[in-house]
């Protein structure tokens, strides 16, 4: 069982869910992004999701687009992710997944990328534009390197697709709460609950919900039916507007809602 899986199970036994926190590497600078990730880990976030900035992020809304573009303008290089992972792992025990669009992995070489991930202590990858149908190489190589594979499931996915996504994912299944891109929403789609129900029917053991989650109430709501709540844009936004202090406060507020719940 992978580190992410054990953690989710452990939290479940303790009667609570997980808070998964996303930040892109290199925003606002490489060092500050590493510091920000460590802050999240020390402020109640259970699983870290580190994003690789990419030139064409079709699943991302304006907040994350702005941050990743700034990272790229600041000279971000893919290999910096591995340095960042090592530093973060030295400072915290929180399991860490890397979120990346597929082309950077392809150009690095899938095998080389997997080897570097393993060496730097990461748990695996979340792949927003790689569906299991196109992931033959990644499925083989991630198994060989004992890495997690988090595929996305959408409210529109058919039963057959949910089965295939569940079968091919390891770590957890990323349930997309709504048909759309990343970014805060005032109301969470009821589609999220229905999707998680359908994933359970497809025998998904661990399911985290992402997209649009930004408030303690939303986290608490999602954790009534899912194993984890994934927060991205809300953290990036706090970091962008209020720096590390605002990020810490946001993480504490969101993780506090889990303990109270």
């Amino acid at each position, binding site marked *: 069982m992978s580190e992410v899986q054990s953690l989710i199970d452990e939290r479940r036994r303790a009667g609570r869910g997980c808070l998964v926190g996303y930040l892109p590497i290199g925003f606002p600078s490489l060092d500050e992004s590493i510091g920000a990730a460590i802050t999240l880990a020390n402020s109640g976030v259970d699983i870290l999701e580190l994003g690789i900035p990419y*030139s064409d992020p079709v699943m991302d809304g304006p907040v994350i687009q702005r941050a990743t573009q700034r990272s790229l303008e600041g000279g971000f290089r893919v290999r910096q992710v591995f340095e960042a992972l090592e530093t973060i792992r030295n400072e915290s025990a929180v399991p860490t997944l890397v979120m990346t669009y597929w082309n950077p992995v*392809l150009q690095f070489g899938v095998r080389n990328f997997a080897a570097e991930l393993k060496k730097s202590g990461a748990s695996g990858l979340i792949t927003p534009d790689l569906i299991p149908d196109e992931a033959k190489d990644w499925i083989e190589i991630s198994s060989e390197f004992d890495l997690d594979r988090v595929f996305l*499931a959408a409210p529109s996915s058919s039963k057959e*697709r949910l089965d295939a996504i569940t079968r091919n994912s390891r770590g957890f299944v990323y349930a997309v709460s709504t048909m759309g891109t990343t970014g805060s929403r005032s109301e969470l789609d009821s589609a999220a609950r229905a999707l998680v129900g359908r994933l359970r029917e497809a025998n998904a053991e661990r399911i985290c919900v992402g997209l649009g989650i930004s408030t303690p109430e939303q986290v608490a709501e999602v954790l009534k039916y899912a194993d984890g709540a994934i927060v991205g844009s809300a953290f990036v936004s706090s970091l962008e507007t209020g720096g590390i202090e605002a990020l810490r406060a946001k993480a504490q507020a969101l993780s506090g809602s889990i303990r109270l719940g």
Partner: protein
Amino acid sequence: MSLRDQPGPYFGEFGGRFVPESLVEAIDELSAAYDVARSDPEFRAELERLGREYTGRPSILTEVPRFAGSFGASRILLKREDLNHTGSHKINNVLGQALLSSRIGKRRLIAETGAGQHGVATATAAALFGMECTVYMGEVDTERQALNVARMRLLGAEVIPVRTGSRTLKDAINEAMRDWVSNVASTNYIFGTVAGPHPFPAMVRDFQKIIGEEAREQVLQAVGRLPSAVAACVGGGSNAIGIFDAFLDDQEVALYGFEAGGDGIETARHAATISKGRPGVLHGARSYLLQDEDGQTIESHSISAGLDYPGVGPEHSWLASIGRVRYSAITDSEAMEAMRLLSRTEGIIPAIESAHALAGAGKLAAELESGSVILVSLSGRGDKDMETASSWFSLAGDS
């Protein structure tokens, strides 16, 4: 084995469906609807009727001896897609996809556009079918193609300038995909070229292959044999696939794709994807791509907004890899010179995109033996490019 009618999703090692899961149901639905439509006589008849009565098909073939004479003793014939309603080949594909949208009950169309030709064609189809239309266009392109922005708005479409990334065609595609992910239940994405995830490369080719099918017959009628060479410009590559397809199995016909060489492919400012790129994934397909070592897309540069794209359709990547089509680059200056030459020798003002094919044909004419016949895809007319031409050639003012 025939090279024609490759069904996708893969063309050799190129193509595929590298899309967010949220889009899979939509492209599955589109694939299924298209599979039914393509063999439905009613759908084909309706598309043919629209081609005949709305677009103005078949487009004519024009021999251009004065233009050809500047290069040597070859004969050059132009397939006149510039005479189509809306001024380019783009309408062929758009009418097909709009008809398909109405079959699957999606009454809102979205599109990306670079030069504005595909956006204008989509806005036109939306007006014709009584549908809603939103067009995404890079802010840089809205400035250099202001006339087409006005045309789209007059046709009732909403034009959204895209201010993210490099603010050109690739970013317009990103933004259109984000719209599609968010509104997929009501909206169909009318993709403008033979790139993108399956089924777009195969479907758009099928809607464009009429160009080559007509031209092949017309050349046979006009000169009694097949052409020695066929030339087309390649951005994403829809007019090129459209004219090449009918000739793919005619091994005696050499096929040439001309990419946008910008300031020259030895510089960093060009859009010569096959000449200078390497395989990668962008906008849903594996294909040649201008990218840095990390796989970040590199901004392309071309005087022609319609060719200013760092990717290319996967079928072109495959045709390049098997050697069936030869791809090379034409610089901005060479294209502009060909634009002026065709205008002055034949009274036909080509789009700057198509001028790349004309410049390429000129080079071929100088190389081929005397009496060779070169068929050129004149994919669009140059009206939209008058501001660019005016400043390039200093045409405004008193003198």
